[in-house]
């Protein structure tokens, strides 16, 4: 084997280990586990409540919009945590940068607000 490729051997080993772990576990549970089948147990969502209707029905696109906007502003909060933890260390520069970050998000917020993306009725 080429010597430059040799350093990637651990990655290959780990890949084999991971795949092997999954394969062995699935195989072993399949062989030694008890098998009790029933209609309710074999249904797609086995959670105690009976399945009703089809999942592929039209739904208001507003749900999607709100969900996307929620994720956007939720992720914003995640960025605030590391800043808060290092607040003293980062000092005024960090404060200014965070202010800028929030200001940019505020522009986006004003935009979606004025565009009426948050209006639930109509």
């Amino acid at each position, binding site marked *: 084997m*080429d010597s*430059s*490729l040799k350093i*990637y051997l651990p990655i290959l080993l780990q890949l084999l280990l991971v795949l092997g772990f999954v394969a062995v576990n699935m195989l072993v549970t399949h062989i030694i586990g008890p098998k009790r089948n029933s209609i309710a147990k074999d249904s797609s969502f086995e959670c105690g409540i009976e399945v009703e209707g089809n999942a592929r029905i039209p739904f208001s696109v507003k749900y999607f919009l709100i969900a996307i906007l929620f994720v956007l502003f939720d992720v914003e909060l995640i960025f605030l945590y590391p800043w808060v933890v290092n607040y003293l260390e980062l000092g005024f520069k960090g404060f200014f940068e965070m202010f800028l970050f929030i200001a*940019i998000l505020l*522009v986006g917020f*004003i*935009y979606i607000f*004025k*565009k009426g993306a948050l209006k639930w009725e109509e």
Partner: protein
Amino acid sequence: MYTLITLSTLGFLTLMVGVFKRNSILLPLTLLGLTLAFVLNCLDIKVDQLYYVSMMGDDMFAVSFTQVMIATTALIALLAHYQFKGDMSNAGEFYTILIFTLIGAQVMVSFNHMVMFFIGIEILSISLYILAGLNKKDKASNEAALKYFLIGSFASGFLLMGIALVYAATHSLYIGDIAEKVRAGSEMSSPILIVGLLLILVGMAFKISAAPFHFWAPDVYEGSPTLVTSFMATVVKTAAIASFLRLFFICFGSIGNEWTNVLTVLAILTMSIGNITALYQKNFKRLLAYSGISHAGFLLIGVIVYANSAGAVLYYSIAYSLASLTAFTILIFLSSKNGDTAITSFNGLGKRNPWLAVAMTIAMLSLAGIPPTAGFFGKYYLFNLAIRDGQWWLVGFGLLNSLISVYYYFWIIICMFVKEPADETKLQSEWSSLLVVTVTAIGILAIGFIPEQIITLIK
């Protein structure tokens, strides 16, 4: 550095102006901001410093390509004024996304770090996916946006994988460090590095629509609004080829023999397929799309002879941008009444609007590479470099393709001056698009007189 800040601020300002429905100041504001960015960028000439934790650089290469792209964007913003005459409801968003695309393009040509390179490409691409679907009610526009998005994200995947493998091989993301590592190990290039390099090459070939990765281009060009198509053909192509050259020249210049052969084949294929397919087109937008593919092939010559081709690539990009901007503007003009973009709509333009026909002739001559125009000198300098590098095959195919392309460019000229028009009425003139046509057509002739000055800009 200040250019980037100015452009970003401008982007947010136009968004706010658009959303508060002050549409009449959109164009003045955009032009003012772009002018300011242009001037600030001029101040960066000869400064040559690194900024943002050395992740971006203000070298001559970055500054001159940014200048070209800002100027072209300003012309397209002017055109948009005409396009949005009737319906202004999306104008604010259009200007905003246009400016953010420009930011992406600027980051792409001035990156000094692989992450900035990728972020630049993504800012540019994601903005373009939205722009391609600007006509929300038009099915073709939606199709173009979706196709562009799928193919574009696929290409970004290749690119990212390539960057990851190059990082694995060289343990750095700064292009200077990568170049050093690559040079140090150039006798025995590691296979990981070569695979990464090829993946990046494939990703970039997708972005500049080089054959055999060009299939998305005609559909996307045809489906998008003509205004957006003109932006894709000019600014986006310039940014893509410039970042391609910057990356491969700086990082992988020392192992050129590993990848120039691949690119030579790609360039010959791109030129030939683009030109031969263009011969059969009935729609002018598709024709320009295939012509754009063949020009991407010519520009690839600049990447193959990377050592001192930056000036020639800059010149060729300017010449190509000006000529295709003229052609697209006139197409917007012609198709504004009924949306017809067939080549037959050029019939008899010489009688209806003589000045437009003359400008179109200048643009076609430049695209074909006929002497007094800028297109000729662009090709001349690229071929000259290729000959000095001993790439005879490349030059042979380049010349052959120039000859083929003369046929369909001249066909447009024949349509305009020889064929009878369907209706004799003169087209309604409008100041902003007339201005763009005049500036670009005169620009094509003007920079034909000063090729040396432009080519020697980048040392």
